[in-house]
C-alpha cells in the first residue's frame, strides 16, 4: 500500500470520527451525572439541520455552530424536564426524543434538501503544517476538528482535575450522598444533560456543514447510536472515547477504500461494517460483567428526586 494513501485514510478517519467525538464526549458528561439520554441521534439530526439553515442564511460558521448547539440543548432541555422534573422513564423519554428529532429535522429540512454549502476551509497552521507527514496528519484540519481536540482536553481536565467534575462524578455514583452533602443534584444533572445536548447538536453541525456540506434527511445515519455505544466501549473514559471515535471513523472510511484495493464486495455489505464492528466491540467489552459494573456510573438511568428518598 502506498504510504500517501495510508496517510489520506488516516486524515479522512479523523474527519469521519469527529462527529462521534463531539456527541460521545457530550453523552459521556451526561452519563457521568447518572442520566442516560438515548436521544443523541435525534439531537444530532436537529443540530445538523438548524446549523445547516443558519449557515445557508448567514454564511457564518460561528452562527451555525451557535444555532446548532442551541437546538441540541433545547431538545435535551425537553428531555431534562421530562426525566428530571417530571421523573419520566429515561429510556422511554430518550427514545421518544429521537423519534421526535427525526420527524422535526425532516420537517425543518424540507426546503433545504437541494442546497450545497461551500464547506469549511482547512486551516494549515503556519510552520507546523510544513513538517512532513506529521504536519499533514496533525495540523491541516478545519477549525471544528481542532475544537473537538480542545473539547477532549477540556472534558478530561474537568472530570478528573476540577472540583466541579468531582461533584458531577459523585452525583452519578451516589446522588443521595451528594444531596446530603448539600449539592443540588437536579440542577447539576440539568446542566450535564444540556451540555450533552449542545455537543450532540455540534456533532450534527459538523456533519451537515463541514463533513458533507449538504442536508439529506436522516443524514446522521445511526452515528448518534454509535456514539452511545462508544461511551460504553470507552468504559466512560474520555481518552478511550477519542480512540474509539477515530477507530470507528477509520472503519467508516475503510469501506470506501476496500473496493479500491480490488476486493469485490457489494457496497451494501461493506456499509454494514461499522455497525457489525460496534456489536463485536460491545461483546468484547461487555463480556466481563465486572468491566461494566465497575466503570459505569452507579446511578446511571435511575430516576432520582430528593423529595422521594
Amino acid at each position, binding site marked *: 500500500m502506498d504510504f500517501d494513501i495510508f496517510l489520506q485514510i488516516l486524515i479522512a478517519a479523523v474527519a469521519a470520527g469527529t462527529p462521534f467525538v463531539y456527541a460521545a464526549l457530550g453523552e459521556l458528561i451526561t452519563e457521568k451525572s447518572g442520566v442516560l439520554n438515548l436521544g443523541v441521534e435525534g439531537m444530532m439530526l436537529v443540530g445538523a439541520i438548524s446549523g445547516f439553515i443558519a449557515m445557508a442564511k448567514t454564511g457564518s460558521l460561528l452562527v451555525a455552530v451557535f444555532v446548532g448547539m442551541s437546538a441540541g440543548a433545547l431538545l435535551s432541555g425537553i428531555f431534562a*424536564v421530562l426525566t428530571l422534573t417530571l421523573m419520566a422513564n429515561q429510556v422511554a423519554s430518550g427514545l421518544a426524543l429521537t423519534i421526535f428529532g427525526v420527524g*422535526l429535522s425532516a420537517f425543518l429540512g424540507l426546503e433545504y434538501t437541494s442546497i450545497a454549502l461551500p464547506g469549511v476551509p482547512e486551516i494549515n497552521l503556519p510552520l507546523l503544517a510544513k513538517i512532513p507527514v506529521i504536519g499533514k496528519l496533525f495540523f491541516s484540519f478545519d477549525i471544528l476538528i481542532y475544537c473537538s481536540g480542545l473539547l477532549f482536553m477540556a472534558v478530561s481536565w474537568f472530570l478528573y482535575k476540577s472540583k466541579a467534575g468531582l461533584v458531577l462524578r459523585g452525583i452519578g455514583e451516589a446522588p443521595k450522598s451528594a444531596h446530603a452533602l448539600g449539592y443540588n443534584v437536579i440542577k447539576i444533572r440539568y446542566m450535564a444533560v444540556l451540555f450533552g445536548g449542545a455537543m450532540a447538536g455540534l456533532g450534527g453541525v459538523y456533519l451537515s456543514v463541514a463533513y458533507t456540506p449538504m442536508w439529506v434527511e436522516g443524514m446522521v445515519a445511526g452515528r448518534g447510536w454509535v456514539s452511545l455505544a462508544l461511551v460504553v466501549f470507552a468504559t466512560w473514559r474520555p481518552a478511550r472515547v477519542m480512540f474509539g471515535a477515530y477507530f470507528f471513523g477509520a472503519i467508516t472510511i475503510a469501506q470506501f477504500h476496500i473496493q479500491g484495493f480490488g476486493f469485490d464486495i457489494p457496497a451494501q455489505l461493506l456499509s454494514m461494517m461499522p455497525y*457489525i464492528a460496534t456489536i463485536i466491540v460491545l461483546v468484547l467489552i461487555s463480556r466481563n460483567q465486572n468491566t461494566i459494573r465497575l466503570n459505569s456510573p452507579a446511578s446511571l438511568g435511575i430516576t432520582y428526586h430528593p423529595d422521594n428518598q
Partner: protein
Amino acid sequence: MLLSLGANPLSGYATMFTAAFGSLEGFSETTVKSIPLLLVGVGICIAFRANVINIGGEGQMVMGALLATAVALAFPAFPSFMLIPMVLMAGAVGGAFWGAIAGALKAYFNVSEILSTIMLNIVAVQFMNFLLRGPMIDPAEIERGTGIPQTMRLSENADLPILLEGMRMHLGVLVALLVAVGAYFLLWRTAIGFRIRSVGYNPDASRYAGISVPKNVTSALAFSGAMAGIAGAILVFGSESHRMVTDGGSTGFTGSAGFNGIVVALLAGLHPLWSVPSALLFGGMLVGANALQRAAQVPSALIIALNGLIVVFVVSSEYFKQRYAQAGRVEEPDDNDNGVIVTEGGNNE
C-alpha cells in the same frame, strides 16, 4: 404548533378524526395501518416483561419480510392455504432469529440490548438493500435497465385475502388480533410466560428458583422478534404492489412501525390486549395525519413526532401522580402537565 403553521388546531384534529374513524373506508385504512403497530407493540410487551428493551423492531420486521419473500419466491405454485401460513411462519422465524441474536448477546455476553438492536436494525436494512438490488431483484428491472430495487410481483397465492369487498382491510387484521390474544395467553397462562415475567421481575429470585435467566431473556427477544417478523411479512403480502421494495432506509418499508410500536406498547401499559385499542389509536393518527397533510399542508412527519411526545407526557404524568401519591400529598398534576405541552410547542420555532 399547528397554529403557528397557519392551521386551526381544532378543525385539524376534527379532520384527522373523521379521516381515520369517520367512514368505513377510513376505518379499514386505519386497521391496515394498525397491524404492524399492534404486532410490534405486542412483541414489545413480551420483551419489556422480561425487562429487555427491544428497539430492534425495524430490523426484525425487515428480516422477517425478507425470509417470507424468499419463501414466496421459492414456492410460488403452492396453493394459498399452504403458502400463506408458510410465509407468515417464515416471517416469524426471520424476525425471531434477528431478535434472538440480540437476546443471546444480552444474555450470554451482557451486551446492552438497546445498542445491539439498533446496530442490527442498520445491518438488516443494508442486507435488504443488498438482496433487493442483487439476488432478489425483479429480473424485469434488469432487462429494462431501470434497476428499481424491488422483487417481482410475488405469487398471487400468497396475497392476503381482502376481508371487505373494495377495501384494503385484509386477513392481516385477523392475524394480528390472533397474535395479540395468543401473546396474552403466552404471558399469563403458560409456564414459558411465567418464566419470562419472573425473569423480568426479579432475576435473582428466578435464578434461585431454578429458572435460567439467559435462556428466558433470549426467548423473550425471540418471541418479540417473531411478532415483528410477522408484521414485516404482512406488510409485503398485504401491500398493494405485492412486492418488497426498498428506498434505501428502513422507514420506507416499515413506516417506522418498529419504533412507534414501542410507544403503542407503553401507552397500553405493556399489556397485549390493551395494545389493540392503543394500536388503533396510533393507526388512526397515521391515517389522520395524512389527511391533515392534504387538507392543511401540515407535514405528517411532524404531527406524528408531536403526538409521540404527547404520549410521553401521558407516561410521565403517571409517574408524576405516583410520586405525589407516595409522598401522601394532594396536588393537581394536570395543569402542570398541560403547561409543559404549551411551552414545548413554543420550542420548535
